[in-house]
């Protein structure tokens, strides 16, 4: 497979790629080996270069959003809690970032609230609804992440990124693999470095995460919040509920 140095022409780029474009695998894109990443469908031998590009895109794109999935939203075990904390550390480095959860994989019928959740069966609705032009998925099971990434590439202009605990995602424009807590913390550090290099400052009160309309209603009309105030503990406090999606809502949808 060709690397970023051998072939500068990008293969997987922000869309809309079309009504029903071929998958990245059909286009010959293969998953990276450990230590590597994918950058726009090309193999990047050094994953830190991919992380830096993720930071640049997230720091410069309108309505950049983090999409935490079930594996970091729910306190399955201590590792999940630690990863959730690391994710909030990443969020703390991106001015005006939004956090919209993917708490489960069930389609939201008859109507999704795009300010409340994203869903793998119709993720483009959340992208369109919030005019999101850059996003990172963390903690989504690989099959559902792949469905989501394909649909977003097909129908939106969003630059997708996937920080994956397994082998990565070829349908994301940028992806790294084997992302445990340590690697998430590395991502936060790289984001901080790139942000400082770009001269972008965080608000003095630390409230850099922007609430969606639904989240704002939950928090009494506040527009921004400090992500580090949401640090979960091992009992699972915070998690998806912190972003306006709680167990009662899930029961109602069942």
């Amino acid at each position: 497979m060709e690397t970023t140095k051998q072939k500068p022409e990008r293969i997987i780029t922000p869309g809309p790629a079309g009504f029903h474009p071929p998958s990245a695998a059909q286009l010959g894109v293969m998953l990276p080996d450990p230590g590597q990443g994918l950058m726009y469908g090309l193999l990047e031998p050094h994953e830190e270069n991919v992380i830096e590009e993720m930071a640049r895109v997230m720091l410069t794109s309108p309505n950049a959003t983090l999409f935490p999935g079930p594996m970091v939203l729910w306190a399955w075990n201590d590792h999940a809690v630690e990863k959730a904390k690391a994710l909030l550390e990443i969020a703390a480095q991106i001015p005006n970032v939004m956090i919209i959860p993917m708490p489960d994989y069930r389609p939201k019928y008859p109507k999704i609230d795009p300010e409340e959740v994203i869903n793998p069966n119709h993720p483009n609705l959340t992208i369109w609804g919030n005019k999101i032009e850059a996003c990172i998925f963390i903690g989504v099971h690989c099959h559902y992440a792949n469905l989501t990434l394909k649909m977003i590439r097909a129908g939106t202009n969003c630059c997708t990124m996937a920080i994956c605990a397994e082998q990565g995602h070829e349908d994301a424009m940028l992806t790294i693999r084997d992302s445990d807590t340590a690697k998430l913390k590395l991502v936060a550090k790289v984001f901080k470095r790139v942000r400082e290099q770009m001269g972008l400052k965080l608000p003095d009160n630390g409230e850099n995460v922007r609430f969606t309309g639904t989240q704002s209603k939950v928090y009494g009309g506040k527009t921004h919040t400090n992500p580090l105030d949401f640090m979960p503990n091992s009992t699972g406090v915070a998690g998806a509920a912190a972003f306006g999606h709680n167990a009662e809502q899930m029961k109602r949808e069942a």
Partner: protein
Amino acid sequence: MSESLEAEVKTNPQGDPITSVAAPKVEAKKDPHAEAKKQTVVSPEYLFLEAPRKREFITGSEAAKEAVRRSNVDFAVAYPITPQSETMQLIGVLYGEGYVKEYYRGEEEYGVMSSIAGASRAGVRCYTATAGPGTLRGIEPIASWPGHRLPAVCMFTCRVVNAPLAIQPDNIEISYLLNCGMIVFHAENQQDMYDFTMKAFIISEKNDVTLPVGVCCDGFFVTHARGYVHMQDRSMKLPPREAWRGAVPVLDAENPPARLSRDAPVQKSNFMAYNIHAVWQQEVWAAVERSRKYINQYMGGLLSAENMENADAVIIASGSAAAQSREAARLCADKGIKVGLIKVRSLRPFPTDELRKLCKDAKLIVIPEFNYVGWLAREVATAIYGHSKAKIIAGPHVYGGQSMPVELILDEVESGLTGKKSTNVPLSAIMGADVNQADVTHFMQNI
């Protein structure tokens, strides 16, 4: 009547009451699972590529059994219909010995394949086997396995499926499996049956694959006949399935996010529902593509090629036809005709790039098969179209349980090279014609 109820006093050979001698030793009840409990887990890489092996002379069904013995299988379900093989009966023996944790007999193949789906969703390693009519009876749940991203291994010991009912080998059922979205291997012999089965479990369960694998063989030729099989010591086994690493969450009724994740998502008739199903299918086939690197890693490639250098003709075959083709190639060599052999191990994913490279300069390709329709020839022709100018002979074919005389293959190689009319393959089954007949005629006159 009352006399018959009296306690019987047994005597020893000398006529003394048995109570007068030492009480017979009561042997401690032997734990039937003792050997299984002693198995140690080793890495797939060690077991497949490094562990020492010993040779045994066993049937294909026994080879499958020995593979399952070393594969840390949690669940197997059997429906031993005729025409099956004795494989699932032998897996029952493994259950008795403790090598398989759960085992039962299903009501019929639809139920069997549905049981495999449930067990795989629950996160355990699953195995079953079927054949011919059984494959087609179970094909609806089988075809649903890939979409549900269910790792499992199913052995297909191919038999005829057409009426009139027969129990003879004929691998037409593979053509039905090729478009399910599952990974499909075709074993040539007992050794392949053994190796492919074990490796299939590991490939099936890779996170970026998470798909079922069908390990096919030509029934009777492989399942009932004996062959030499090199096997690792039975004291070793593969690591257990790590279901938490799968591409989808396992079924867990206690945790709503996991439970809801498997609810049918596409029951609404609108664009989004159609779109998710379309993307879902793309993802299944993307996973098939991702399995290539693991097949290369563990099986040494999707195909193997022999004597390809300067070959006058190439035979491409899979399964038992590969064994017959190897012998035909030897007969050709005796006649001075250099024939290369490509054995296709993996039918899904299909070795398209590999075939394009290997067949780039081929003049003649002969594709013998054990079925009427010639599914392998279609696959090959589609794969190399535009990448090779070879004349492709989709044949010879045998079916309905016939064996394939190697002379049939030899005849096709000779007639293909000379332009002589074939007695076994119709003109309609010959593709491509850019062969310089003068060259090959000259060649044939000088051997």
